[in-house]
């Protein structure tokens, strides 16, 4: 019993918060303002609680597995959710169904926690569904906007499709290996063609979730239609959690077939980076723009994953941590501006620096971090991903990735240029930023500047993953 409590404490805390919200909802209810403050405090508690009592062990007959690295990954996600609750406070206060929104978001988070911890194909599948379906409901949260429902519809259809493929892959895998336990599958793999087919199906399902090219088509529409709070959740928290379990599946389950997946990974990484970047070049809407940029970022994550050792794990976890700060800062600024002026086009950001220097600097910092320019943390994140990917001496692969950094710099600079250089007769008016948003933006800004320079963060992740 005691073991159950400590090993599953992250899941239990989240579940407790969900039930608390449920009781508040069916009880007397609360005003949005005070409910939001309560949720923010609870999420902060959830984040801080993640630092304590982390141990290694498994539960339910080896279905659930956790260790300090997994706890760290969960903590990154908790931090992200906490930041979203702060950043999108202005929008959240106006929604009619605040309690439901957080119940859905936390259910998805619970699903992600279980997914990262899963050690069995069955629980993995269940957790993945739990992590997806609430998000589709969240995408529909702008009830009066048609695009929002359209996005939700696209999301639910494409994820249902990918779940089908995943299940097919799982059944094939079970058919040939006779087991669904992660620890046992690896021993049964011999690289037969059925197993390769099963792997391809599994890989496809992951590719859908991570929006790897050519399975990225749902991304831009869903991102554009959803409220920014949901978009940022999708692009940061969802992506991060799937990347974590993707590593586990590749490194642990499919280790014997590493030659197969290495080639696939390299090809898809190149395609994802190039296509994501090229499409991002021409986007006008900031949300679509960030959607394609996040596709390109996933390409870089794949470069890191291709290393197939602890260096890759470290680099990816580190990158996701930085990505949480950078991307949430970018979405946060977009959310503030969209909430106060309704403007979401990059051209409408012209002259932003004159009226809102703070927002402009934060957004610029976030974009430079996404582009990988020092002194921001993104520089270190990108570089370590490439270092991890370069371990196999695949120089052309690294070269392609490095050249993609140039393309991405071009479009990130476009936004910077609009804010700082271009003139505009009708710029976004001066925005009064509410304290919680300001706090979150400052946290993100500090994270972007400091995570890279404080090298012990990386070394800490390294120690955690090296122990595996």
């Amino acid at each position, binding site marked *: 019993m005691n073991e159950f409590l400590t090993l599953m404490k992250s899941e239990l805390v989240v579940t407790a918060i969900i039930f608390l919200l449920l009781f508040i909802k069916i009880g007397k209810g609360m005003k949005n303002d005070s409910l939001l403050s309560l949720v923010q405090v609870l999420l902060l508690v959830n984040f801080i609680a993640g630092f304590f009592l982390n141990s290694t062990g498994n539960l339910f007959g080896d279905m659930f597995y956790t260790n300090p690295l997994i706890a760290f990954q969960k903590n990154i996600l908790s931090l992200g959710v906490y930041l979203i609750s702060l950043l999108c406070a202005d929008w959240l206060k106006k929604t009619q169904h605040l309690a439901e929104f957080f119940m859905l978001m936390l259910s998805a988070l619970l699903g992600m926690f279980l997914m990262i911890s899963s050690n069995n194909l069955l629980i993995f599948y269940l957790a993945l569904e739990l992590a997806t379906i609430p998000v589709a409901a969240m995408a529909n949260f702008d009830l009066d906007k048609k695009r929002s429902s359209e996005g939700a519809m696209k999301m639910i259809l494409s994820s249902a499709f990918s779940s089908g493929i995943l299940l097919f892959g799982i059944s094939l895998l079970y058919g040939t290996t006779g087991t669904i336990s992660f620890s046992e599958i690896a021993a049964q793999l011999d690289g037969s063609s059925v197993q390769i087919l099963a792997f391809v199906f599994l890989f496809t399902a992951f590719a859908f979730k991570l929006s790897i090219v050519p399975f990225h088509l749902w991304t831009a529409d869903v991102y554009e239609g959803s409220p920014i709070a949901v978009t940022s959740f999708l692009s940061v928290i969802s992506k991060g959690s799937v990347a974590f379990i993707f590593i586990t599946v590749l490194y642990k389950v499919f280790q014997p077939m590493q030659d197969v997946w290495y080639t696939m990974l390299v090809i898809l990484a190149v395609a994802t980076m190039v296509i994501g970047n090229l499409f991002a070049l021409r986007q006008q809407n900031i949300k679509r723009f960030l959607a394609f940029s996040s596709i390109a970022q996933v390409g870089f994550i794949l470069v890191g994953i291709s290393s197939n050792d602890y260096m890759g794990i470290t680099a990816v976890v580190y990158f996701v941590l930085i990505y949480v700060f950078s991307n949430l800062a970018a979405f946060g600024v977009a959310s503030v501006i969209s909430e106060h002026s309704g403007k979401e086009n990059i051209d409408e950001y012209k002259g932003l620096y004159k009226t809102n220097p703070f927002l402009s600097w934060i957004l610029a910092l976030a974009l430079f971090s996404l582009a990988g320019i*020092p002194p921001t943390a993104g520089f270190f994140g990108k570089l370590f991903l490439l270092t991890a990917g370069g371990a196999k001496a695949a120089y052309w692969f690294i070269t392609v990735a490095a050249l993609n950094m140039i393309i991405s*710099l071009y479009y990130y600079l476009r936004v910077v*240029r609009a804010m*700082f*250089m271009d003139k505009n007769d009708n710029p976004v008016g001066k925005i009064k930023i509410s304290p919680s948003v300001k706090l979150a933006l400052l946290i993100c800004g500090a994270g972007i500047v400091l995570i890279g320079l404080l090298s012990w963060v*990386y*070394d800490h992740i390294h*120690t955690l993953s090296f122990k595996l």
Partner: protein
Amino acid sequence: MNLLLLIGAPLLTAVAVLLSRNKAQVKWISLVGSVAQLALAFALLYAFRQERAQNNMSQMLFELNYKLFDSLNINFHFGVDGISVAMILLTSFVVIAGVLVSWNIEKMTKEFYFLLILLALGAYGFFISLDLFILFFFLEISVIPKYLLIGIWGSGKKEYSANKLALMLMGGSALILVGMLGLYFTAGHSFDIMTLSKTSIPANIQNLLFPLLFVGFGVFTALFPLHTWVPDGHSSAPTAGSMFLAGISMKLGGYGCLRIATYLLPEGAKEYANIIIILSAIAILYGAFATMMQKDLKYINAYSSVSHVGFSLLGIGMLTQTAITGALMQMVSHGLMTALFFAVIGMIYDRTHTRMTNEMGGLMKVMPFITTVFFIVGLCSLGLPGLSGFVAEMTVFMGSWENSDAFHRIATIAAAMSIVVTAVYILRAIGQTAMGPITNTSHLQLKDAAWNEKLAAIILVAGIIAIGIAPGWLNDLLRPAAEEIMNRIAGK
């Protein structure tokens, strides 16, 4: 001497600038900061000479080593040899002059000085780094300041130029990054330059990595045909921006070409030396002839920079100790000269509001100080003995001539011929702007240089003359360091 001071001083200045309340504070803090940097640079020179005088012959002095990313074996490893000391001196000269000539900037003063100092910080850090990763970090740190300085405070088609510059330099960085990772894995997970310099790297890997690193750094230092960002970038940048770009940033590339590409990969350097020589000879001649066609003063200096920087690369490609010493001298000399050139152009432009030579005339009569400085820097550019340009170019030619085969001789002669062309365009530019009658009557009201401009010009002129009439001290700094590089090339 603790090398961290060299990073600490600009960092502190930058933070102080951010915290200051009004424009006057910003300016004075920046000035005090840059004076402190100049003092530190001289202190470093003094300390360095003291150590050498006491026969401390270790290759790098004042080494510091702090662990940064322990698991990846990335360390804050700092140290200086003669080359670094010379480059740091150059940087501090250009920084103080740049701060002084920007004294009257009105638009977003705080941000301007902050970015300027950040740029300087990157340069200092770059020159003292002995760890490739840290070196790359400091190289890249200047991307944001360069882009914003040109894009916000620039003139003409500034957005285009800023974009072009940022993207081309990023391209260079991408190549450097790949080359750097190649070195890292070949040498068994080490970015340390001193470790790498003692590792023997197989020739086929050297031949693969050398072009990546050399071209990568070459982009920064206007290696032909990747020089196209130079004219646009320099001419669109604000005065201090141009000074920093041409005076400091381009030197980062030259330093990298020598210290990283050539020093660490000597076999690769030998393999590609002829191509480097051909490209730099083309750059020298092409730059000179292209300058002839320019009417805009900034474009004149930008294209002549392409030509002059070509001498540095030519010296590196010649692979003799004298030529490499000359190449380094040319970097220092060109840094001072071109910064001064841009400063003077800025001063003229601030008054006449034009940079076209054919719209000016007889400026000597209204602003004798500025035009005199213009004369001095022009004469330095065309290689008049007694000024730094002559010393540097002469050393490069002498070193090149040590290679006795026809190919090297022809390249040397071709490069030397550019001096004649240089004389033509420099004298013509000076003649059109400074001499003759005043063509535009509104120019009669113009005032000569203010105190800050005079001070900036005097500091840089002093540097040029100091090298020109007493090159010995610079030679003493650079030659032993060049010898270390030659030793590795010769395989000792």
